[in-house]
């Protein structure tokens, strides 16, 4: 079976706009402004956030796109690695914090 994820398919993202184009146009205008412009955050900072989120949602297209965008905004491997640790730490913490529920249940059930 062919892979569901092919690098070349990333370039076809725009094909989504072949149907219901007005929805795509709104999405891409918002997406571009949110992720690829200088604002209160620099474009490099937004790229690092995008890289972290890409690893959270584990989307190979996004990881490819945001790794390139990080490099093309001057980020280095130390900064990108720290962004990945933030991703992993928040994900790990999200599991661990649910231990509070576990403890609450144990407390309730215990004599």
């Amino acid at each position, binding site marked *: 079976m062919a892979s569901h994820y092919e690098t070349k398919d990333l370039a076809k993202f725009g094909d989504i706009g072949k149907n219901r184009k007005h929805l795509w146009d709104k999405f891409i205008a918002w997406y571009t402004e949110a992720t690829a412009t*200088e604002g209160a955050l*620099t*474009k*490099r900072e937004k790229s690092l956030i995008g890289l972290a989120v890409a690893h959270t949602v584990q989307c190979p297209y996004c990881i490819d796109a945001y790794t*390139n965008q990080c*490099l*093309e*905004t*001057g980020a*280095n*491997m*130390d900064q990108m690695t720290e962004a990945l640790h933030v991703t992993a730490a928040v994900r790990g913490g999200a599991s661990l914090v649910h231990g509070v529920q576990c403890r609450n249940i144990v407390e309730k059930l215990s004599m």
Partner: protein
Amino acid sequence: MDFEKTLALHNLDLKPLSVETLQVNVGKLCNQACKHCHVDAGPKRTEMMTRETVDRCLEILARYPEIGKLDITGGAPELNDHFEYFVVSARSLGKHVMIRHNLTVTLDPHPVSGRNMEHLPDFFKQHNVEVISSLPYFQSAETDSQRGQGVFEKSVESMRRLNRIGYGKEGTGLILDLVYNPVGAYLPPEQSAIERQFKDELGKQHGLVFNNLYVITNMPINRFKHFLERADLYESYMEKLVNAFNPGAADGVMCRSLISVGYDGTLYDCDYNQMLEMRVNHGSSASIRDFELDKLLGRQIAFASHCFGCTAGAGSSCGGATVKS
């Protein structure tokens, strides 16, 4: 992937506008052998401009007052035996002189003669030349992976010596510019954003200062092209350059305002065309010995697919982005 068709598609007719700068490549000898070098320069190269050709270049500079700038490149241009004569003579003609200085050449012995080169910063200051130095990143890992082990540390020391005598400092009139190029197969960042990062990081970590940072896109020719081919990245890199074609950047390409001279006196539209041996096309001899400004201004600039490197994104030239933000 035809550059001229792309220009036509955007109704662009890129004719020469002027010759403000004579960019002279005085030889391919270099103390470094960087992975991205479009000249394929290195310590074993022997091509060198002779004194006679240097004199022909000086004659042209003297004959044409409208050519106000001399941009000396290489290799490491300081390794040419006639380099200092060239600088002193051009300055005495009143020309603005720019040196493409790789920083480490000050600290390494001459690769052929073993001569000590540590006098260079004082020489630059004495003749008030603009120093333009490559530094691909403000950290050692990235810089050394492209330019060789230990290059970052030496570059920092060399910049420190230039700063100490006033280069890069406001109010001294001594200009030290840096050149950023990507350490791989991707486009450079926006020039002012990466300049801010460089100024912050080099200042914070090493107490270094400089005037301007220019970003240059890696050209898909020679050594960098070989890297792309080995890594199976050539097609995707070219696609990236083509997709990033910017008509605004194309309008400001450097070949419209300079003439590039090879070590043997052959004339080209730019240093990249020089390395591909694409001579000026103006229906006359492409030699410094037959330099005629009027004819050169009427020439058809020679384009090929590597020219997409100068027109991608905010554009790329020896003076950085061609679209200023």
